[in-house]
């Protein structure tokens, strides 16, 4: 009696372990894809109106372009914020290293344009909604090493499904 229960327990444990192994292999694969190929992100906030909604859009962002240095002017990127390393922000690249960028520093109060050259190894990012965006105009050019992913496809809301421009 006792040995049969033990055998049943043994086979149940073995089956549980096999299932766990399969799930962990799947999670491993998912993690590698997320980290090195492509990731899904929920972007929200007013700084990229009208491109992205205030309340949130689901987008696909690829990581390969960052690894192979194929980011260019006009791309929307996910960047780790230089002010808060736990936060990832979404902005548009307005200048690569060596470019000269012109921007209005204080859109609410004045009309004064500033110009500067983006230093080596850095990029200049700005939100599409310049009136309500905390970006390179406030924290300066961002080192390339902080780039996380490049947005290339929107999957929610359904009216906006497709490439962004």
């Amino acid at each position, binding site marked *: 009696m006792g040995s049969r229960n033990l055998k049943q327990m043994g086979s149940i444990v073995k089956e549980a372990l096999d299932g766990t192994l399969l799930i962990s292999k799947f999670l491993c694969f998912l993690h590698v894809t997320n980290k090195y190929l492509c990731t899904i992100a929920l972007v929200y906030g007013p700084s990229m109106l009208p491109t992205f909604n205030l309340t949130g859009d689901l987008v696909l962002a690829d990581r390969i372009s960052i690894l192979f240095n194929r980011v260019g002017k006009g791309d929307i990127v996910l960047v780790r914020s230089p002010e808060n390393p736990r936060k990832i922000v979404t902005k548009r690249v307005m200048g690569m290293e060596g470019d000269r960028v012109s921007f209005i520093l204080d859109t609410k109060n004045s009309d004064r344009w500033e110009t500067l050259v983006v230093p080596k190894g850095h990029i200049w990012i700005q939100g599409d909604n310049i009136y309500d965006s905390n970006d390179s105009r406030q924290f300066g050019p961002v080192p390339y090493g*902080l780039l996380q992913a490049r947005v290339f496809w929107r999957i929610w809301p359904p009216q906006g499904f497709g490439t962004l421009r």
Partner: protein
Amino acid sequence: MVAGNLWRWRNAVKEALERTAVVAKFLCLLHVTNNYICSPTLVYGPSMLPTLNLTGDVLLTEHITSRLGRVGLGDVVLVRSPENPRKTVTKRILGMEGDTVTFLVDPKNSDRCHTLVVPKGHVWIQGDNMYASNDSRHFGPVPYGLIQGKVLCRHLFLGPYGKLVEAALEQVPDLLIPIQF
């Protein structure tokens, strides 16, 4: 005859695939450990003399503390260079956000000092050898997000054959993750 050969061929392929799967699983585990837990790294260059050698040191670096945000003053860290994103440098943290740092602007030529406050979300890194180090005195405070890991200890290999193993490893830098100063 042919059927026998085919059956043997299929068995060989199956065995090859199984062995490859084992190797792949091992590499996967090695990769996860290297990226998220700790990894051996080879560092070289003059900017951290006398703490680290000019010709190269094998260090154990861990990646957990920097992810948790617990890297602090005085730690030697691996940082992705803000000037060249493909290069990782090793420096010491001399100021966290909000700290006031005072430094010699150009110690070879003048005695001039400069003081500034490290902005929010940034750290101030300097090499121990301030005469030959390209650090925050040149490229400014570095965002915390660029910190890759913290150096734990060096000379991983203890025992009578430790030095030999290290010398051998330094000849084959591809085995370790190479880092420039």
